[in-house]
């Protein structure tokens, strides 16, 4: 889901995705490239992202991934599932949704 979301904002190559997730989460989520890469391959196999060889800004070649329309739909789906998940946990933990702010 995180990879899909990251690609929502534009195509990136594998390393770029890892960096983006790290920086966006304020260094909280440091995903191992060793796990991210196979995950990317799996996403591609399911048709949610597509890859293309391109030259980057520094004139270096890399494989860039972008979100497909199917991937966009999947992102929406996963996002709502995640929201449900969060709400369920909040209910169990005792605080009503919206009361989390302190």
């Amino acid at each position, binding site marked *: 889901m995180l990879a899909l979301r990251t690609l929502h904002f534009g195509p990136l*190559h594998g390393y770029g995705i890892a960096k983006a997730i790290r920086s966006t989460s304020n260094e909280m989520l440091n995903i191992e490239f060793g796990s991210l890469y196979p995950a990317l391959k799996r996403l591609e196999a399911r048709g949610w992202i597509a890859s293309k060889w391109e030259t980057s800004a520094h004139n270096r070649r890399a494989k860039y991934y972008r979100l497909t329309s199917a991937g966009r739909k999947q992102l929406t789906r996963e996002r709502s599932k995640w929201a449900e998940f969060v709400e369920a946990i909040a209910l169990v933990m005792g605080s009503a949704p919206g009361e989390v702010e302190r």
Partner: protein
Amino acid sequence: MIWRRLRYLFPSRRRAEERDMQEELDALAQIGGKRELGNLTLAAENARETWQWTSLEAAVTDVRYAARGLRNNPGFAAVAIATLAVGIGANTAIFSVVNSLFLRPLPVQYPYRLVVLAPRERGSSEFHDLSYPDYRDYRDHDGAFSDMLGFALGMPGLAVDDRPDRVLTGYVTGNYFSMLGLQPALGRLIGSEAEMPAAMPAVVLGYNYWQRRFNSDSRIIGKTARLDGRAITIVGVAPKRFHGTFSLAETDAYAPVSLLAASDRSFWTRRGRGDLRVIARLKPGMSLRQGRASLEVTARRLGEQSPETSKYTSMEVYPEWRARPQPDAVGSAPAMVCTFLALASVVLLVACVNLANILRARGKTRETEMAVRSALGAARSRLARQLLTENVLLAAWGGAVGILISALMSRALSSLFTPIDLPMVQLDFRPDWRVFVYAFSAALLAGLIVGLGPVRSAWRSNLNIVLHEGGRGLSGGRRGGRSRNVLVVTQIAASMVLLVAAGLFMRSLEGA
């Protein structure tokens, strides 16, 4: 998603994917620096799973490795396969006998709806045949059965062009072939004229007999001949796979029941003495019990009408396949089948034990190999699968050769079953799909059973000890020796039992 996977069955696609992945990882390494990215080899390995058929490839590798192992040890392979083949072959041969005699249904329409009528006299445990008038009464008046046929067996001499042969002949009623739903291979089959006296009765030849004796000559149709001196016409040939309704021997010719009456006029009218074996066809939806009940009612009614038939107090009904070769066998047939199959299993067991011995000896030389592979990171399950694959491969070969052996043995067995005074009977022990399934399962079972032994010892082997002591550590010594002795003793014992049983069986055959 599975469609994309299928594309990767082609090695060229896989190679292309691999190249692409390497390029990508190299490019990223240049951009981000190798340390940043961590263990790329692991990443690559995990990523490969998305487009590789790993488990399939592993299985193929196992098989190849196993095949190579067998090729490098031809002596061992030959002995192992031969042992298995003999075991499986003998086992399957016995099963095919059982199959032909008892299990295989008649090659007719809806064979499982056919039942045999077995009348029994009061106080006797033996079954009779039915007389013609009784048969007609049952046929015409019983409501649970759509039709009933009757037949009797004889061994008349058939003389065509003055060359007489003793032929096993079925004297059949007019509806014999029509009830069984058979079409002639040539000419026509006996019809309703069978139950009327005729000047030139029509006779039908059995297919194999026609092939054997007349070389499949179609000009035999319409020829006149003599059956026990009486003039008859050969009108047709029975269908190819049909061997008659007597399970122990092939019916060579089919003649009308009117010929029985020709030598004995009272055939048509006398009751009481039995002539015909009756097979009836249950109406669709009728159960065996309903059929029997209906017959009892009819029997009682007929008993009241005619004093001679009241002798039959009970009319039993059995499914056709259970009443082979005759209704008297119903009680003993299952026991016989079980005995046969038990014998067969013993044969296979002896072969497996033999093979297990051989494998055990060989297993010791492979401990080092297993230890090294284990040290290199092979999971124990993978090692076990490898060993199992080897044994299944052996078993597959053993099974294939075994089927050949069983085919040969079946032919030998069929000549064995020929009682001396019936020179021309042929039994159909040809294997059908049941036999193949049986052989396949036996081979698989053998492979698995035998395979578990070395797998278990490989499991338990301690890596250190094996590597350091060069394999002479655990399974060598005294413990291994004792179980080896047990195996040998079991083998000898089983073989003796088998020999004695076979000898007794042969004796009983000769006496019969």
